[in-house]
C-alpha cells in the first residue's frame, strides 16, 4: 500500500514537473511572439526569426551529436534540401500575367517544359511533406549504408563532410534544373500574399516559433524515455549496447533520419525569411557552424542547442558588422575557447559552476562525494602536476 502511494506520488511529481516545463516553454514562446517584436526593429526581428529557424536544426544536431554521439558535418545537405523544396513551391506561384508558365530562370536557359520532379511542387500538401520527408529519407539512406558497416566516429564525420561536397557539386552544376550557383531567389507570392511584406514575414516568424516548440517537444519526448537512454548508451559505449542484445544500427538510422528531417524544416523556414536558397548553404563551413552552436549552448541539452544557435548567430552578426575585416579571428577564437574551456557549453557551465556560485552566494557548502579525497593535499598535488 505504502509502495503504491509512493509510486503514485512519483508519477504525480513527474507529471507536475512536465506541466511546469510546458508552461515555461509556452510562456517563453508567447514572450517571443508578443513582446520581442515590440523590442526589436524590423531588421533585427527578421534576424531573430532566421536564427530561431536555425535553432531547429541545432536541435537536430543535438539529438545526434549530444545524445547519440554522431558528429555529422553534412547537415547542410538536409537543410538545403528543405529550403529548395519550399522555394520550388513558391517559384511555381507564377502570376497569371507572366509571359511564361515557367520559373523565370528556366526560360532564360532555354528550358521549355517543366522538369518532371518540379511538377508535384504545385501542390502545397506535397511540398509540406517533402520539406520533412525528402531530407529525412535521404538521411536515413545515407545513415543506413554507413551505420550498417559499423562505420562510426571520425569516419562517419568525414563521410558526411564528403557528401556535402558531392551534393554541392551536383546542385551547383545543374543550372537548368535548379539555377546553379544562384540558387532560387526572388520570391513573389505565397497563398496570394507577398512573401517579403512585413505582415507575411511576421507570420513566418510566428510559425517558426510554433514549429520550434513542436520540435523541442518532439526531441524532449524522444530523449526522455527509454529511447533517449538507449541513445545515450550508444554514445557512451556502443559495443556494450550490442552485447546487451540491441542492434544500434536501426536506432542510429532512425535518429539520424529524424535529425535530417528537422534540418529540412529548419531550412524551409530559414529560406522563407531569407528569401534565397542556394547550394552555398551546403558548404562545409556552414555544417560545422551548426555543430558549434550546439557546442556553445551545451551538448546533450536541448535548451542549450537553441540558446547556442541564438547566441552564436547574433554574436556573429554583430561582430561582422562592427569588424567586417577581422571578425573571423573572433569566430575561430570562439570555437577554440568553447571546446577547450567550456566542454559542456553555457548550459553545462551553469549546471556545474553556476550551482557552485549559487551555493557560495547563499552560504551553503558545496556537496562533495569524497570530501577526504577532495581535500587531500597529496591527491591535489598529483592532479595538478601529473594530469587527471
Amino acid at each position, binding site marked *: 500500500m505504502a509502495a503504491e502511494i509512493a509510486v503514485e506520488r512519483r508519477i504525480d511529481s513527474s507529471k507536475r514537473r512536465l506541466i511546469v516545463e510546458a508552461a515555461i516553454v509556452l510562456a517563453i514562446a508567447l514572450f517571443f511572439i508578443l513582446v520581442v517584436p515590440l523590442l526589436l526593429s*524590423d531588421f533585427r526581428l527578421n534576424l531573430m526569426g*532566421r536564427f530561431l529557424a536555425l535553432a531547429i536544426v541545432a536541435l537536430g544536431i543535438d539529438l545526434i551529436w549530444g545524445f547519440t554521439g554522431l558528429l555529422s558535418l553534412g547537415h547542410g545537405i538536409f537543410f538545403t534540401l528543405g529550403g529548395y523544396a519550399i522555394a520550388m513551391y513558391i517559384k511555381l506561384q507564377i502570376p497569371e500575367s507572366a509571359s511564361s508558365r515557367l520559373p523565370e530562370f528556366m526560360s532564360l536557359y532555354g528550358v521549355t517544359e517543366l522538369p518532371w520532379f518540379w511538377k508535384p511542387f504545385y501542390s502545397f500538401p506535397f511540398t509540406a511533406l517533402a520539406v520533412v520527408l525528402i531530407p529525412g529519407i535521404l538521411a536515413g539512406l545515407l545513415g543506413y549504408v554507413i551505420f550498417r558497416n559499423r562505420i562510426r566516429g571520425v569516419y562517419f564525420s568525414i563521410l558526411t563532410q564528403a557528401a556535402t561536397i558531392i551534393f554541392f557539386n551536383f546542385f551547383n552544376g545543374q543550372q537548368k534544373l535548379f539555377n546553379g550557383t544562384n540558387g532560387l531567389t526572388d*520570391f513573389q507570392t505565397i497563398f496570394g500574399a507577398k512573401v517579403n511584406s512585413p505582415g507575411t514575414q511576421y507570420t513566418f516568424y510566428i510559425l517558426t516559433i510554433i514549429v520550434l516548440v513542436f520540435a523541442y517537444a518532439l526531441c524532449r519526448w524522444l530523449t526522455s524515455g527509454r529511447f533517449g537512454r538507449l541513445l545515450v548508451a550508444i554514445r557512451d559505449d556502443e559495443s556494450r549496447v550490442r552485447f546487451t542484445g540491441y542492434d544500434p544500427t536501426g536506432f542510429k538510422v532512425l535518429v539520424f533520419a529524424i535529425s535530417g528531417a528537422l534540418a529540412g524544416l529548419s531550412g524551409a523556414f530559414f529560406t522563407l525569411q531569407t528569401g534565397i536558397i542556394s547550394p552555398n548553404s551546403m558548404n562545409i563551413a556552414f555544417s560545422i557552424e551548426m555543430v558549434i552552436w550546439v557546442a556553445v549552448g551545451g551538448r546533450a541539452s536541448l535548451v542549450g542547442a537553441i540558446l547556442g544557435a541564438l547566441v552564436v548567430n547574433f554574436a556573429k552578426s554583430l561582430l561582422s558588422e562592427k569588424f567586417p575585416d577581422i571578425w573571423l579571428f573572433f569566430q575561430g577564437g570562439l570555437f577554440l575557447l568553447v571546446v577547450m574551456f567550456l566542454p559542456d557549453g553555457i548550459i553545462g557551465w551553469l549546471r556545474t559552476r553556476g550551482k557552485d556560485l549559487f551555493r557560495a552566494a547563499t552560504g551553503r557548502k558545496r556537496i562533495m562525494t569524497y570530501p577526504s579525497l577532495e581535500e587531500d593535499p597529496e591527491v591535489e598535488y598529483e592532479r595538478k602536476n601529473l594530469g587527471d
Partner: protein
Amino acid sequence: MTRQFGRRKFLLYGSATLGTSILLKACASSTTSSSGTASPAAESPAAESPAAASGDTIKVGVLHSLSGTMAISEKSVVDSTMLAIDEINKAGGVGGKQIEAVQEDGASDWPTFAEKAKKLIEEDKVVVIFGCWTSASRKAVLPVFEEKNHMLFYPVQYEGQECSKNIFYTGAAPNQQIEPSVDWLLKEKGKDFYLVGSDYVFPRTANTIIKAQLQAKGGKTVGEDYLPLGSTEVTPIIAKIRSALPNGGVIYNTLNGDSNVAFFKQLQGAGLTADKYPVMSVSIAEEEVKAIGTEFLKGQYAAWNYFMTVDSPENKKYVEAFKAKYGDDRVTNDPMEAGYISVNLWKQAVEKAGDPGTPTDLEKVRTAVYGQEFAAPEGPVTMKPNHHISKTVRIGEVRDDGLFEIVYETPKPVDPIPWNQYVAETKGFTCDWTKTGVDNPGKFKS
C-alpha cells in the same frame, strides 16, 4: 579540480578582456568613415577624419566579401571604392556634405549578402550601396533592393540577362566584353574554340552566348568543360583539350579565381603554348596576373574595358592616387575602376538632383543618374537609360612586366545591350527605364 578551475577562470577573464577590447574598438570604429583598411589597428585613426567633425554627412554602404573565397577579388574593389570616396571627401564632399561609408562583410555567402544589404538600408539608413561581385550575390540582394526601392551600384562584368530598376551596372555587359573578344579571335586566331569555365552561372551563361555566337559566325565549339569552384586539379581538362584540339586552337577561359593559377601553370607545363593555343580570359586582370606569375601568362589575352596601361591623364591620376594610398606594388584593374566610376557617377547624380535623397525616396537621384557622363580612367563613359554604361572595349596581351599591351580597342565607347541578342530566349528584348507605356520597362520587345 583545481586545474579545471584555473582553466575556466582563464576563460572568464579572457572573455571579459575580449569584451572590453571589443567595446573599446566599437567606440573607435563607430566613427570610421573612409579610412577603413585591412589592418585592425589602422582603423582607429579614423576618429580624426573630417566626416566626424562636420556632423552633416551622407551615409553610403559598401558591401563586399572581406572573408571567404571571394575576398581575393572583392577586397581590392573595396579599396578602390574607398579611394573614390576619400577623394570626393577631400575635395569638399557631395554638395558640401562629407560621405560616410559603412562597410559590411558579405562573407562570400549569398544569404549573408541579403542580410547585410537589409541591415545597411534599414539600420544604417544609407542612401546608396556599392557592392557585390558574383552574380549569385547580386541575385540574392536583388529582392531586397526591389522591395525597398533602393539603389545598388554593381561594379563587375557579368553575363547580362538582367535589367533591374534598382541596380546600376557599371561593369561590362556581354556585348562589351565577351562578344567583341570572340569576334576578334575569329578574325585573328582561328575558328576552333574550346570553352573552359568554373562551374557556376557566369561561365555557363557566357558559354551559352559564345556557342550561339560561334554558330552564327562560322566558328566551331569543339568542347567545353567545367571545373568545380576552387578546384585546382586541372590535369583531366588539359588532356581533353589536347585530344580535342590536336593541332592547336583557341581556348576561351571563364575560370574563376584559384583555378586559373593551376590551369595556366599546367597548360605551360604540358607544352600548350600561347602561339598554338592562345587563351582568351575574361576573369584575369592585373591582380590575377600578379598572382599567377607572368611566366605562365606571357602572350595570352584578356578582354576588359580597362587596363592599368590605358594611356590617359585620368588613368595616370587614378593609378597614382591608388598607389599613394595602398602601396607602390599594388595594381589596378577593371572591376576596381568600375567601383571608382560607380562612386563618381553617383556623386554627379546627387549633385544634379540637388540632394542625396532619403533611404525611402531615391527617385530624384535615380532619374538624375541617366545620361551622366564621366571622364573615367578607361575613357568617357555614359550612363544609359538601361542602367548600364557605355564602355570602350579592349583586348590586352600579357607582357613581361605583368601588365597588358593593348592590342585592340574600339574607336569609341560601345553601347550596352543587357538582353542578349544571340540567345533565342532574349532575342529582340530591350530595356529602357525612361520609357513609359510598356508593362515592364526592364524587358520588352522593341
